[in-house]
């Protein structure tokens, strides 16, 4: 194959890869603005959460079938994942969440923290990253588990308070 033809094929292939790896994600960010979901209720595998005021979300980040939702509270991303059945307690779940966090590059687990959903006490850990901070909360109720991971460039007390308000809205039904 001539060099010119090789260059044409290489350019076409690289264009296809860049289209899907960069182009479509950028388009998605451009046309899928965050929307205010304050007051809206989300159902995640039987657990409901009503977003407090000024909580934002991107449309593709609510996946009811997978029991997942990601909210934006200030500059922080708050990921909630619900699944079941689960046979362990919240402390064990928090340790499992920490197991994955501590092997992430640049992540360091710090002190335990208290977490409270609607009528259910949980277990949590704080962590710092190279670019910010975050914390996790784990809840188990009636064999249903809910995991919350919050992280951001700077988690000031105001933002942490608003995230705790969101977590407090997690309702396990009969709890």
């Amino acid at each position, binding site marked *: 194959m001539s060099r010119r033809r*090789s260059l044409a094929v*290489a350019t076409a292939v690289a264009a296809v*890869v860049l289209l899907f*790896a960069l182009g479509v994600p950028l388009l*998605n960010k451009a046309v899928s603005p965050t929307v205010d979901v304050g007051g809206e209720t989300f159902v995640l595998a039987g657990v409901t959460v009503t977003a407090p005021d000024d909580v934002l979300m991107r449309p593709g980040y609510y996946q009811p*079938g997978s029991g997942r939702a990601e909210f934006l509270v200030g500059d922080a991303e708050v990921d909630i994942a619900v699944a079941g059945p689960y046979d362990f307690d919240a402390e064990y779940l928090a340790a499992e969440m920490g197991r994955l966090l501590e092997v992430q590059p640049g992540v360091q687990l710090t002190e335990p923290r208290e977490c409270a959903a609607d009528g259910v006490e949980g277990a949590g850990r704080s962590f710092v990253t190279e670019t910010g901070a975050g914390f996790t909360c784990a809840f188990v109720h009636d064999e249903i588990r809910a995991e919350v991971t919050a992280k951001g460039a700077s988690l000031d007390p105001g933002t942490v308070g608003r995230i705790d308000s969101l977590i407090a809205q997690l309702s396990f039904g009969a709890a």
Partner: protein
Amino acid sequence: MRPDPTSPAQWTAALLIGAAAILLLYNTLPVALAYPRAGTTALVLFSLFAVPFWWLRRRFADRLALPAAAPVLGLLWGATVAVMTSLFGSRALHGLMATAWGPTWAERWSPVLAAPVVEEVVKTAGVVLVVAIAWGRVHGVLDGIVLGAFCGVGFQIVEGYAFAMSSTVLNRAGDVVEPVIAVFIVRGVLAGLWSHAVFTAIAGAGVAYAATRRTARSVWVSAGALAAVIALHALWNSPLLRDGLGLGALGVLAGVMLKGLPAVLIVWWLVRWAQREEGYVPGKTLAMVSGEAEGPARTPNPAEPEGA
């Protein structure tokens, strides 16, 4: 197929595979370190996918002109560039669909409408790139089938590994192998035969057909093969027959076979057609007997004029 510093196609393959491999390691290594026993089990089990395809390559060795490095390059492309590009592209298309039609609709239909397009197009792009690198060493459709299958199996190994590790993490029950084995039975044994390797084999057949015939019609055939593969992949991902029509496990199994068999039958027919129409690589059988590993370039078929 030797390294050529002046080949744009080789540079593109090296740079994209290198960049994607770094991203892949960045995404998978922490989980593998957190769950070493599950990670090792998943890697060993899903790597077994490559064994039957390597055996298949040896089985058809006298009909293949592509050097051994070509399927290896295809496998690397499938395992790195195709996987990472599909991860970003499919997720973004899911977001666009959620914006347009709502999150519930997007969650149900993006595996049908988004993932097959991104995954099949990127895997086929890899096949095209490898064919460009090994230009002149493609004897016929069988070369494309084997190359495509290897590209698909690379994708399948990493995707299967990722699903198994994701299941282990979501299980939140420690470093145990049960979720890995469960995923291997479902994705490897029940769904393994008619997955990415078979889809990309069909697309690869189209690419090789266009590369060896070099007619406008053959390019359309190649595009048709890609479109057909996207449709077969969409059918495979669709919720159709997923509940087994309420007939329990046997119904689910029948549904899996009904959705997967068409692709397998197409590959089977393509292999038979290629064996009948294209024959052996000239001089390859003799070369193999005398111990030479790689065959010569394709000798043009008199019935199909080169460069037409």
